[in-house]
């Protein structure tokens, strides 16, 4: 019923990406949240189907419940609404490395077919074409969270055949390469884009399109991917955002824009 009603809704590609990412977060999950799209999706989950999701930010807040989206990783609202605020070393030592994070929720500048991430440089490291911000918390989040969700927009600049630099490990060369390297966390289980959702093949660990957003064609996904992307034989169509989630997302973004005086879709 809800679907029939909400099928009349209009939504943007970013909105379905955000809502789809949000849906993957189960209630009660302990989530290490990157700023930008991951933070939007995680907070949307908290405000809709997962009120008891625990949001941890690398700046120190544990159990943050921000009323507007943080522009930066250390906004005051995160501290004021948290169950507790610890030091940044403690976040990385006792909570992330300690093995207490269910889901690491990351963005990325570039990704490859094995869900390795680059946020460091485009071009050679010593003579970069574009110097990106760098690793931040991602290498250890990607390695140590029990599973990792990655959210980014899909195009050929971002989805590349070969990364110039692996900042954070996905499945490395695929297969059991990740385990062989001694990485303990489970690794990426979903890459959510504005076109669909890719999940790693259980054996080869190659990203496979398993869900496509309504109105998007497989051809569009191929066009936006820098390698010959695998398509699941059981390809599903992503459930469209329901009216409640969409309203909650728009409400959150309106509150945020009002508080910050700008859009908050940029990452950083």
């Amino acid at each position: 019923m809800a679907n029939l009603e909400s099928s009349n809704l209009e939504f943007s590609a970013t909105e379905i990406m955000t809502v789809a990412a949000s849906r993957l977060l189960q209630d009660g999950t302990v989530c290490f949240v990157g700023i930008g799209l991951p933070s939007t999706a995680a907070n949307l989950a908290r405000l809709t189907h997962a009120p008891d999701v625990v949001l941890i930010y690398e700046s120190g807040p544990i159990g943050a419940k921000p009323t507007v989206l943080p522009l930066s990783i250390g906004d005051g609202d995160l501290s004021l609404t948290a169950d507790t605020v610890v030091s940044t070393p403690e976040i990385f030592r006792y909570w992330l490395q300690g093995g207490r994070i269910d889901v690491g929720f990351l963005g990325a500048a570039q990704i490859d077919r094995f869900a390795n991430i680059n946020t460091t440089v485009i071009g050679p490291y010593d003579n970069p074409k574009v110097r990106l911000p760098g690793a931040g918390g991602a290498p250890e989040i990607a390695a140590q969270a029990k599973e990792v969700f990655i959210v980014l927009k899909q195009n050929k600049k971002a989805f590349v055949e070969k990364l110039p630099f692996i900042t954070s490990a996905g499945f490395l060369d695929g297969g059991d390469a990740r385990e062989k390297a001694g990485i303990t966390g489970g690794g990426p289980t979903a890459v959510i884009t504005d076109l669909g959702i890719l999940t790693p093949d259980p054996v080869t660990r190659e990203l496979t399109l398993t869900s496509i957003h309504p109105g998007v064609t497989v051809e569009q996904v191929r066009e936006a991917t820098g390698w010959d992307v695998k398509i699941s034989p059981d390809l599903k169509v992503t459930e469209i955002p329901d009216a409640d989630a969409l309203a909650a997302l728009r409400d959150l973004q309106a509150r945020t824009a009002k508080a910050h005086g700008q859009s908050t879709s940029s990452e950083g």
Partner: protein
Amino acid sequence: MALITPLREAVSSLVQDGDTVALEGFTHLIPHAAGHEIIRQGKKDLTLVRMTPDLIYDQIIGMGCARKLIFSWGGNPGVGSLHRFRDAVEQGWPHKLDIEEHSHAGMANAYVAGASNLPFALLRGYTGSDLPKVNPNIRFVECPFTGEKLAAIPSVRPDVTVIHAQKADRRGNVLLWGILGVQKEAVLAAKRSIITVEEIVDDLEAPTNSCVLPSWAVSAVCHVPGGAYPSYAQGYSERDNKFYKDWDPIARTRDVFQAWMKRHVLDTVDFADFKRVLNDGVNDGAKRETV
């Protein structure tokens, strides 16, 4: 015992050319006033350390004070690139900037190791990342009990650490709260330290287990209300998100950047003067718009 002293004197006597200097603060409590004073005094050849070099280091790097940066994430949070930082790395302007690049986990542990007087930090980290290929200071050691391979990186031991905090008392004991980042570790890891504070009070009224830096563990305390601007001090001020956005076009071109720095930093006498000039500029703009 911390000396309670004007910021100008603290920077002049405690920061030397060639020093390794950490200005810390994780979004919250970033010591911008002290950063300006370092630029104003024309300090040179600094090795800068900071987990999240943002506007404060974009300015110091762009003004040519630094020869090296040790960091883990360099960007304008929520806005985009640091154009002066990128120009230094990509084009070597105003001169070459060496970089030593880590992850946040690595940097945070390196500060802890520094505060603990250990020569290196031990962590599970960097596995599968290309960072160890480009940073010879990321090595691996074996656990003498289990044989597991763990990452090792050198401790951060700055010559001077600079932070901003909410309160000091008249003896120079310092209290900070809210998002603490790595500031306590950064101060304790350093040989010397400068702490700018929002206010100096008779009694800190610190909760029992709060983050206090005792006077005898600090070199200088400087009273600089609003000294974190455009960052914020919880309980005292809000982050000026607009300034972070406005920085993007200023930093994008060398000329505009240099003119802005001259007008707002080099030609101002202190942080209060900077804010006055900044406000005049904003008011000028407002006037122009309404004309």
